[in-house]
């Protein structure tokens, strides 16, 4: 069920960095519902950094905090170190200020506590002029 707005904007390329299937499943459904999204997925921070380093161009990166191999904070730092300015939004099940601060300090543009919802996603897309 694509939103009406989706029909009027170009396709946006989203990289979802998330190790847990339930969160990926939910995010896929929300992004499909938003419409006009080309979704790529990475199961940990290291995979996300690799994709970006190998030329993956994204309009938005959504990244979980706690992941195996490389967490979201470190992935954000490394992506920024590559000179990539794509908006990065940190996600976490904890809504602690420390979590949000750590993401912003690592170079993320925004933080939102999980679970992702239609409203939160709409706010993110609007914030970065992707709606």
């Amino acid at each position, binding site marked *: *069920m694509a939103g009406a707005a989706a029909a009027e904007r170009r396709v946006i390329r989203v990289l979802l960095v998330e190790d*847990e*299937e*339930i*969160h990926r*499943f*939910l995010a896929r*459904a*929300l992004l499909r*519902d938003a419409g006009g999204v080309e979704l790529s997925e990475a199961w940990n921070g290291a995979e996300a950094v690799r994709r970006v380093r190998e030329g993956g161009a994204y309009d938005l990166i959504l990244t979980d905090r*706690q992941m195996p191999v490389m967490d979201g904070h470190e992935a954000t730092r490394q992506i920024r170190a590559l000179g990539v300015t794509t908006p990065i939004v940190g996600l*976490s*099940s*904890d809504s602690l200020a420390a979590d949000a601060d750590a993401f912003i300090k690592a170079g993320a543009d925004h933080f939102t506590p*999980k*679970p992702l*919802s*239609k409203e939160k996603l709409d706010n993110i897309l609007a914030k970065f002029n992707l709606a």
Partner: protein
Amino acid sequence: MIMPHTHSLLLVFFGQCFRICEMWRKAADSRVPLVRQMKDMPEPNMDYSNLRRQIISMKKSLFDQGYLDEQFNQLEELQDDSSPNFVEEVVALFFKDSSRLLTNIEQALEKHPQDFYRLDSLAHQFKGSGSSIGALRMKNECSMFKAHCSNRNLEGCRRSLQKMKREHATLKQKLETYFQLLRQVGPRERAVNSWK
């Protein structure tokens, strides 16, 4: 003596009576199996209404008793004709994850010395997974468990784990019943978000 004209009229009259009787007989014959069928069939409108009432009542109860929060409604909003089993699939993923995590937490609690960092990490995953389906009580109990981990309170963690297991079992049973009811209305009705 019956006049010929009258005789003709009588013939016509009795002929019509015969035809009418035949018509009633045929109607009666055709009605019998229909009535018999109707007695055997449940009244579809009444059954659907009852089922719908049960579903709405059960869902309200799950919210009123704090088992679920608004996130569950969000999941139902995402369910449509293209993904008619979406909610049940997400919930199945939760119970698959959570059963594994409960086992891992239990095992981690029995290790000496306890690794409260790992315990917190497991509870964090559990909390996130539960929040995805709106499992409010589970999410709150995970927060309690995490607080005990921060305080390195082993007994608190053990008590909290027992509560998590009870809440988990209760929620699973209630949601299984809820989905069984939903399955009875069929996939098309299930996909329509009308259970508010």
